[in-house]
């Protein structure tokens, strides 16, 4: 028996109209997208820029209002929910953004940023809030004095860990990660990826992991959906997608990934230039 999905997305669609009103040009950013995310699972959403993967992530949280479809979270449809109820559901679904530089308010200390996230969702006495902020800082690997740091005093990787802490502090079950490591250097990228993995194991979190980087998505995801021009062209377990891609676009994407060793790169080039007899 398969477990009950945490999130069920069905026929989600969102179109954008041309800049001028009455413009006939309609861009289908998200076109009839359906997928499930199971508890404790990482679901990877890959595709190239403009394929609608980020719009999908935002539409789930209604940061962009989708045109049609349904998004049911623990059996309740987020898209039909009144604003009040949506507010408290946001405790369960949080988001981590791509750019760690613009995703933290430069005028606020780290402790205040985390405290604010808590204040938005819970009515707690200050003492309890501060305690929780310190606990979460410790969990993402910061010493106590980071409470008083400003974002500009931290590196990109450290900021992204604060971004994760801000999502974690309200106790979510699902975190939507929109390109969380694409702005980071490789050695820092691995810090954040390992941390996300550890947190998942420890807390039973689910992730919707949105990225253009197939190697990263492969490393962290249990299942993957490939998006092209607003549609999901293929989805399935990670190993199957990578070892036996069905859709030509998926194959095209996989072929474009740079080789991990120069010898492999040369072999592939000679294979491409010598015609198959």
């Amino acid at each position, binding site marked *: 028996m398969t477990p009950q999905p945490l999130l069920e997305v069905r026929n989600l669609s969102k179109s954008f109209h041309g800049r001028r009103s009455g413009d006939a040009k309609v861009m289908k950013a998200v076109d009839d997208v359906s997928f499930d995310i199971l508890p404790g699972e990482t679901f990877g959403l890959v595709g190239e820029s403009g394929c609608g993967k980020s719009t999908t992530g935002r539409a789930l949280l209604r940061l962009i209002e989708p045109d049609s479809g349904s998004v049911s979270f623990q059996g309740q449809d987020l898209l039909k929910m009144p604003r009040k109820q949506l507010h408290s559901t946001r405790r369960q679904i949080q988001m981590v953004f791509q750019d760690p530089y*613009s*995703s933290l308010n430069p005028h*606020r200390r780290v402790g205040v940023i985390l405290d*604010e996230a808590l204040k*938005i*969702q819970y009515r707690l006495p200050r003492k309890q809030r501060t305690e929780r902020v310190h606990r979460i800082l410790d969990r993402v690997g910061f010493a106590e*004095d980071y409470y008083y740091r*400003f974002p500009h005093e931290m590196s990109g990787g450290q900021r992204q860990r604060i*971004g994760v802490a801000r999502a974690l502090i309200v106790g979510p079950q699902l975190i939507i990660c929109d390109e969380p490591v694409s702005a980071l250097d490789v050695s820092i990228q691995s810090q954040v990826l390992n941390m996300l993995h550890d947190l998942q194991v420890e807390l039973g979190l689910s992730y919707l992991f949105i990225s253009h980087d197939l190697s990263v998505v492969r490393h962290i995801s249990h299942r993957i959906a490939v998006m092209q021009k607003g549609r999901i062209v293929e989805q399935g377990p990670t190993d199957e997608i990578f070892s036996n891609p069905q859709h030509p676009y998926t194959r095209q994407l996989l072929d474009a990934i740079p080789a991990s060793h120069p010898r492999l790169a040369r072999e592939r080039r000679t294979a491409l230039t010598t015609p198959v007899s």
Partner: protein
Amino acid sequence: MTSFAPRSPLFPGMTADRRSLQLRRIRNNSQVMTGGSILLLILLIALIGPLLTPSGPYETDTPNRLLPPSTTNWFGTDNFGRDLFARVVSGSHVSLMVGFSVALITSGLGLVIGLVAAYFKTADRILMRILDGFMAFPAILLAIAIMAALGVQTENVIVALSLVFTPYVARVVRSSALVVKEQTYIESLRAQGASAYRVLWVNIAPNVLSPLLIQATFIFADSIITEAALSFLGAGVPPPEPSWGNILFDGKTLIFSAWWMTVFPGLTIMLVVLGINFLGDGLRDLLDPRHKSIRK
């Protein structure tokens, strides 16, 4: 690595070593230093000036009318024999008070209007059209019209100038807020479920304070000039209370026989406005990230 430094009021978001860097940047900024020194000097004279004058600004001394500058009457005397230095000093109280009040009021109003317009679409359409209407009039004409409606009184000068200048501040605040609004941390707050109040007043507002401060200094200078112009035209501070504008007005007919009656108040206005503008330009260089010359 201790980061318990208190917040610096001028540069929020700064710890001790960064603040000393900021202080060095201020000291190295010749415009801020020159402008600041000029203003400090004028302020000092405005404060201790009354102790240095031979007679009060309202004391007439008909036998000694229209005396040229001398060691007793540094700026000379006017057509009623009043000491011109005393009148310019006393006028500085009025002018600086008007300028400061207008800068303060327009900043407050401009901040509220600009932020609300930046965040709410409907409010934006309504508010911006009203402000456009205000800005379609030349500032001085609008000020005269408002003065005519309200009556000639020092307090009304402040009201009129505040009405005239608020749109300019609101526009600056709105455009900076629109930029901040697009930042990811604002989207993140919405994703967390933050209220409009929290987004706007707790998170966007502090980010527009630097452009607001810069704009306020220019409004300060502009309102001193406009107040002088209003008083010169007889629609500003009512005589006999001296203001730089109506001292100029008194000297207008005597410009060829008593040059000191126009030159000294005129020079004072110029100096103050120059000082404020220096300060404003310098602050812009210091606070505007686009003008920053920090490299990695």
